[in-house]
């Protein structure tokens, strides 16, 4: 690979170093273009729809960000999403206890994530394989528990989580999304755990030799990511009014995509949580925009995949500098 290294390109590289900023600019540019193409795009309704649509993937991507910064990857998020949703949904069907159902969804998601962490730290299975195995197992469990039948009959209180609005404008999922990002950002920046995640991703051996309890950190972030999958599952169930045991497939692509579009390096040790949120909004904007423009929905997958490749190639290009 060789790129021309003229003056202008060097300048572009300098600006691109702060990928969060450049991604934000790209996002605004996309909005401007879409607004020009469609009068419907820049309405309050549509913008709030975009944030709403971002919530499901964005929340998963927040957990995925910490994992990728640590040098790992979680391919099982879509399956954990479905499995934890089914477990909570079945509990709700049996007991009609909303609180217990929500807690069960979150806890079960966290548990499956912790099992990922166990595979990686205790059995020393590489994250890619451990979570690939979990992708199969959690999906199978979701289908076994639900006997393959979607769960219906969620109460209005449950549905409010996905469809309610604060002050009649701001969707509840948007609020949850922002809260999640505030918390995960806080963890990444102000806690020892967050610092250790960066250190492990940068050089696990050096982190170990500095006295960091690597196994505990890895376990915590995979469990945390599982828990966020559960939370995301609750929101989707509440929006759709049903829990699908086959739901969430392909979400790993979207979640990992949001992380890398945000500029977090798959090599570990570099990246920021907020950039992932921007990445997730970019992904939603692409889907939303193609929709509005009347492009065949299947093209969304193609475009989304291409954007991910582009984002990583930009990362590689900067690395060469």
């Amino acid at each position, binding site marked *: 690979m060789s790129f021309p290294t003229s003056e202008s390109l060097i300048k572009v590289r300098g600006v691109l170093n702060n990928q969060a900023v450049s991604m934000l600019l790209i996002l605004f540019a996309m909005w401007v273009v879409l607004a020009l193409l469609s009068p419907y795009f820049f309405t309050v309704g549509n913008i709030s729809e975009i944030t709403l649509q971002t919530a499901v993937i964005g929340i998963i991507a927040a957990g995925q960000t910490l994992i990728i910064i640590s040098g790992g990857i979680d391919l099982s998020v879509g399956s954990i999403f479905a499995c934890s949703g089914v477990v909570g949904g079945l509990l709700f069907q049996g007991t009609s206890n909303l609180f217990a159902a929500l807690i069960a969804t979150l806890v079960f998601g966290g548990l499956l994530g912790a099992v990922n962490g166990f595979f990686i730290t205790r059995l020393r299975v590489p994250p890619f394989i451990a979570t690939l195995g979990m992708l199969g197992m959690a999906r199978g469990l979701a289908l076994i528990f639900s006997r393959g039948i979607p769960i219906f009959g969620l109460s209005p209180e449950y549905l409010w989580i996905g469809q309610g609005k604060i002050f009649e404008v701001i969707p509840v999922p948007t609020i949850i999304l922002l809260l999640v990002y505030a918390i995960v950002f806080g963890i990444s920046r102000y806690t*020892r755990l967050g610092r*250790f995640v*960066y250190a492990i991703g940068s*050089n696990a051996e*050096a982190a170990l*030799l500095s*006295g960091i309890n690597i196994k505990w950190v890895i376990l915590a972030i995979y469990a945390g990511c599982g828990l966020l999958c559960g939370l995301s599952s609750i929101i989707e169930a509440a929006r759709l009014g049903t829990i699908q045991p086959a739901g969430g497939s392909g979400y790993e692509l979207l979640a990992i995509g949001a992380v890398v579009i945000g500029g977090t390096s798959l090599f570990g040790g570099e990246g920021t949580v907020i950039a992932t949120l921007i990445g997730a909004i970019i992904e939603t904007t692409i889907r939303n925009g193609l929709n509005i423009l009347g492009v065949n929905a299947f093209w969304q997958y193609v475009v989304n995949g291409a954007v991910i490749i582009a984002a990583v190639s930009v990362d590689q290009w900067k690395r060469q500098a």
Partner: protein
Amino acid sequence: MSSFSTVQSVLKLENITKSFYGVKVLRGVNFDLRKGELHALLGENGAGKSTLIKIISGAYKMDAGRTFFKGEPFPSNYSPKIAEELGILTIYQHFHLVPHLTVAENLAITAYTSSPGLFVDWAEVRRQAKVALDRMRFPLDPNARVKDLSVAKKQMLEIAIALSKNAEIIIMDEPTAALSRNETESLFGMIDQLKTEEIGIIYVSHRLEEIKQIGDRVTILRDGNDIATLDLREAELKQIIALMIGREVTSNRKQENSPLQNPLLSIHELKTEHFPDPVSLVVREKEVLGITGLVGSGKTEVARALFGVDRVSSGTISVDGRKVDMRSPRSVVHSGIGYLPEDRDSQGLCLNLAVRENLTLALLAKQKHMFFDRDSEKKVANGAMQSLRIRARNVLQQVKYLSGGNKQKVVLGKWLEAGCRILILDEPTMGIDIGARNEIYQLIHQFTQSSKRAVIFISSDVDEILEVSDRILVMSNYHFVGELDPRKTSKQEIIGMCMSSAANERFRLGQAS
């Protein structure tokens, strides 16, 4: 060329010079090799041995000088490939074998990869392998996979490959470094066979006794010059060491004998998979304990066992009388021990994190709260950067952009800020310029001024061991073979001890002085 010397010399080098980035590594070296002779190359690290053999094997191009193979000048486009065609073959320390293939497949790799048809001619592969193995008196199973072979057998296989390529000169670089006593003996048997087959051997080793045992002549290199070429049947070990070092070296650390301090760290009968016998040592307060030995003598393994990296099977470590939990580096860090590893880039630093984040890593690892204060972290990092004189743009600069010396200061700073009391420094000045070296010596000196502190200083550089240490332990073959007072010893004595085989004069700590 005078016909006399070319008749018996299979290889002759005249006035070879070579520089890297303006630094002269070889300053006009002469060397010649006769048929059926083992000619050893000897010298300290950096004397130019490996550069010389790389020029012979075609890996490097010389700057100036003349090279002859059987009286003929080397071809102008000399390369490793041409060297091989001429019959000059190198047995590397890191084997150039294909691990997943069998012995036979490796031996017949040319037939294996370049058979004209689509299919491998297995009969030909087996035939070639048999021919090559039959030449050797050493048994090798042609069907064994290379990855399952011991180091010694891999070496034998390399030699067999060299023979199958009609070698006339075989270059061996530290061939016994990873061999056991018995394996070394069978290698020497092989070498005897090679000599009777009229093959010339260039042999690089630190182990003097070995060279004495099997060598015919030795050329001693020092600072890129060939100091002398001696007949090994006549030369004495003392004479060789003196030529290698070149000058009478004594410690320039002229400190008054301080009163004997209390033991701070004691290792008692520690055993890991690396050590055939348990090791013990004591470090006293305010002491810099130097541990030296050749590469592969077990110095780093002591550090790794002590720091909880390698699993300890028996023995205890105590700091200030309290037993240390050795399950992991984490638990060892909590008892006040810090470890500066040999390879700072791959083990000591998070290269794409900032100076600040590296400086506070061990400190944060020791703390217990969930949150940490970013402001006080900044203050700690800024303070450390000033007091250690780390030259970086600011504390936010990524560590990977720092020079070697500054990187090493960051690793040191990480442990100083974590408030550790015992520092294990493994080759702390390797690859660091002289200025930063002295700064690191200064920091070690300052560190040990306070009570309840000590340093274990591991280095294979004998000059610096003499300069920095209060007491010196010498390691050879995973045993401590000597305990020395730097004020009463010499470089010659230390190097002699390093090179002596541990089996002959096993030394138990406590018997000394």
